[in-house]
């Protein structure tokens, strides 16, 4: 069975410059996938190719089983796309704009009013429903961009930086809309905001220089970069060489760094993520020295992201 979004070796070049380089992945039904990458990584270009705005140089994109190139209208009908800069007609009022999008998406006349009500309510646009678009604040513009993407009940939602420019309250509301939509639809969203990905996404795709470096669940990615796990110890002043030697003997300890500028010393042990290294470390240290504190640091998404991006640089 095909997935709602499938990318096969998707490539986009502009002259000599390769912006997206043989990217392959899929987005499953009811799955939210976060697209993570530094500026210029190719996130927007990839989203634009899936949305049908740009044609790939090579490779294939299918949306809801339709090839974006050979069946552009059918694939577009299955997609709700909100670009980073909302594409709005300034002289329209909010409802007039949404009405146009609904007609273009072939929403049946009988369903138009209910669908407009639904997206206006979901995106909290009631207060500005009759306002002209040019009078809207940045937050409302962003939400109107999301509302038009939700119209027509698309199978797939593509969101490019959906919360950029929103205040904390609006960010929370927008995330709730995305989360509720993602229950039974597929969502692919690009963002710079790492906590957003952690909060919303089932899987994370890391893109850098147009290449897909990794795609997995947040836990899976953390495991994959397990060597970034570390155990931090607070040990009363002691003979450093002995302490280091004993710690290195512990299975799973990869590196030991000690900050001995003040008492107690801070000891950072880079450890393998596989076993329960903390207990072994604690046993070794307490046998000969005073252990004043021990804390395990699992890699944050930021660590994971930097691990991949810096590794690829």
């Amino acid at each position, binding site marked *: 069975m095909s997935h709602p979004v499938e990318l096969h070796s998707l490539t986009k070049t502009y002259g000599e410059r390769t912006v997206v380089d043989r990217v392959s992945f899929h987005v499953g039904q009811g799955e939210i996938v976060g697209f993570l990458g530094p500026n210029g990584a190719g996130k927007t270009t990839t989203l*634009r190719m899936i*949305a*049908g*705005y*740009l*044609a790939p140089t090579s490779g294939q994109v299918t949306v809801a089983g339709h090839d974006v190139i050979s069946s*552009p*209208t*059918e694939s*577009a*009908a299955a*997609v709700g*796309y909100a*670009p980073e*800069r909302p*594409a*709005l*007609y*300034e*002289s*329209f009022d909010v409802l*007039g704009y949404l009405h*146009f*999008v609904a*007609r*273009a*998406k*072939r929403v049946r006349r009988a369903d138009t009013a209910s669908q407009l009500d639904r997206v206006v309510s979901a995106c909290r646009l009631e207060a500005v429903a009759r306002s002209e678009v040019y009078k809207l604040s940045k937050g409302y513009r962003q939400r109107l961009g999301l509302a*038009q993407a939700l119209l027509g009940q698309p199978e797939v939602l593509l969101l490019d930086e959906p919360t950029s420019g929103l205040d904390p309250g609006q960010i929370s509301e927008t995330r709730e809309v995305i989360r509720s939509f993602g229950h039974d639809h597929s969502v692919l969203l690009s963002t710079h905001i790492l906590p957003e990905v952690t909060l919303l996404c089932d899987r994370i795709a890391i893109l850098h220089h147009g290449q897909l470096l990794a795609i997995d669940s947040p836990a899976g990615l953390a495991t994959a970069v397990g060597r970034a796990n570390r155990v931090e110890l607070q040990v009363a002043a002691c003979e450093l060489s002995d302490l280091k030697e004993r710690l290195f003997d512990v299975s799973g300890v990869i590196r030991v760094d000690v900050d001995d500028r003040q008492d107690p010393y801070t000891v950072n042990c880079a450890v393998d993520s596989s076993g329960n290294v903390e207990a072994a470390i604690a046993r070794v240290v307490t046998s000969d020295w005073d252990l004043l504190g021990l804390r395990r640091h699992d890699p944050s998404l930021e660590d994971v992201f930097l691990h991949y991006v810096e590794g690829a640089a």
Partner: protein
Amino acid sequence: MSGVFAVYGKEIKLYFRSPIAYFVLAVFLLGTGYFFSYNLFVSGLATMRETFQNMGLLAVILLPVVSMRLFATEYSAGTYELLATLPLAPWQVVLGKYLGALTMLGLMALGTVLDLVPLYLFGAPETSTIFSGYLGFLLLGSACLAIGQLCSSLTENQIVAALVTVSILLGFWFVGHLQSFQTVQFLRELFLYVSFAWHFGEFIEGLARFESLALFVLFAAGALILNVCALEWRR
């Protein structure tokens, strides 16, 4: 066709929510009204012949103002990204926009119908010639708008689109004059055959000939097809 009508409705709204529609209609109707009154009351010519002639030249100059924004502003405002990702085929977008522009042309023509009232009151105009003149005006305008829409699809700057369109249209309007400078028979005939002014002049004289009709239709259809190709190429 629902996609075409969605785009058409949007275009009509956009025309009348900006000053462009009112400006073009006002200048066109004031211009044609002035020339009509002058011919009728000063020159004593109770015909539409001279009025049609002026309508043609005014259309060549003013219609690029109608067509200049069709795609150029979509590109510059970023709204083309929406249009291109909605379930609309490029031909539907092109046709919807073109029908919107044709509506403006129809309104311009409709505004001049008022001139016919004194004409029929004080003179005895040939109704068939008037019909032929209006048909010629609509065909000329259709070709001008299609060319203008094509130019608009090739740039993000609507002023550039308007200037390039005016240049092309004036070229096709006056190209017939070049035949006087040619000794090669083929070139003399070519310049005449592609002259908008010459073909439009035939309609004004009451000669609604097939080749004149075909020329304007071919220009319009050719420009619209190239317009669709330009949108495909942008992807």
